[in-house]
């Protein structure tokens, strides 16, 4: 009986798990698409929560289901490769799917480069302004790295939101670690890392910045090119609790100091 209880606990535990799902699709035109969805409801019924996403040819079919398991919003994301010489490029467009509910207007078709990362806003809460994005990256023969993941639905922070980095430990996979015991707080802060230059984080957009960072609790995850970095802090990075998109700018060889709150990280083996 004890064994039955243990198995039951293992089975039901995912009910309280995360709200994100990742897919990898190989399209007919040779492109690899890393597709990431967030759901506003629990994983108790994952199909209802996330709907479905599947690929056929050069099309990704996406449906969100209602309580009766019928699509209440459905669309086709067409990812067509532009033919001809020159670098690989794609055109994105959206079409209705199966006569189900669609957006009031189609998005403007968009040309993207090989390996580009794209956010598409799908749902919103009018009373709170919260949005849910589908995120995807499209590429052929290039390193792929989708947006950092989060346990809850990431949101864009309000203007002036403070970023607090305290006692950071920076990891890039298993190959690099740098640390500091310092604290920096501001709407923009910088981390200077040996051999990696300077990373500037901002809670609002700006020239040279990319919205490719997510802060959740005391963890700050961000992209720089094809690389995923993680900064583990001793306190929450952005308040209130939740997952928050942030902007990041990388300067491999910074020319001058910025005047922003800065932390100089050190490689532990060299600090001893």
């Amino acid at each position, binding site marked *: 009986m004890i064994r039955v209880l243990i198995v039951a606990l293992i089975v039901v535990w995912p009910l309280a798990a995360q709200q994100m799902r990742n897919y990898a699709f190989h399209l007919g035109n040779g492109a690899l698409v890393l597709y990431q969805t967030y759901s506003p409801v629990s994983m108790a019924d994952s199909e209802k929560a996330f709907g479905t996403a599947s690929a056929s040819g050069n099309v990704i079919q996406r449906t969100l289901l209602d309580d009766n398991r019928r699509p209440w919003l459905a669309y086709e994301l067409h990812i067509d490769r532009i033919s001809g010489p020159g670098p690989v490029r794609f055109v994105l467009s959206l079409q209705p799917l199966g006569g189900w509910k669609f*957006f009031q207007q189609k998005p403007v078709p968009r040309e993207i480069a090989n390996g580009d*990362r794209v956010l598409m806003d799908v749902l*919103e809460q009018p009373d709170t302004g919260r949005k849910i*994005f589908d995120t995807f990256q499209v590429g052929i023969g290039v390193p792929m790295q989708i947006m950092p993941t989060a346990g809850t639905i990431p949101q864009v922070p309000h203007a002036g939101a403070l970023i607090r980095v305290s006692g950071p430990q920076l990891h890039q996979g298993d190959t690099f670690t740098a640390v500091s015991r310092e604290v920096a707080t501001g709407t923009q802060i910088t981390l200077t890392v040996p051999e990696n230059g300077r990373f500037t984080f901002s809670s609002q957009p700006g020239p*040279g910045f990319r919205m490719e960072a997510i802060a959740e609790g005391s963890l700050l995850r961000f992209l720089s090119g094809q690389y995923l970095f993680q900064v583990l802090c001793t306190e929450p990075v952005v308040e209130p609790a939740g997952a928050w998109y942030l902007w990041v700018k990388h300067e491999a060889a910074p020319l001058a100091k910025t005047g922003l709150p800065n932390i100089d990280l050190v490689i532990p083996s060299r600090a001893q």
Partner: protein
Amino acid sequence: MTDEDRDPELDYVRTEWDAPPPSAGFHNRMLAAYTREGNAAGWWRRWLGVRVPMPVTAAAVLMAFLLAWFMAPHFRRSEPAGLARYQPIPQPRFIVVSQGENP
């Protein structure tokens, strides 16, 4: 069945024969050996062997399901109640974040 089993003489001997009684202290020695073997098993193995009444197990499984269900994000007050509070964006946009675009 073998021929020996059907031997009337052997059957007679078998019904009349009484096994000798166990030696003195046999019961205590067996009990001590059982206790010794039981203690030698790992604690986890003995724990797995605990007998729990079926109603208690059923109640525990039900409690586990209810606990997980109500811990799910759907029921957390800080989380949106569900899809009903969300609406489709009137006109979505393709925001190419790797080219520096923003929502």
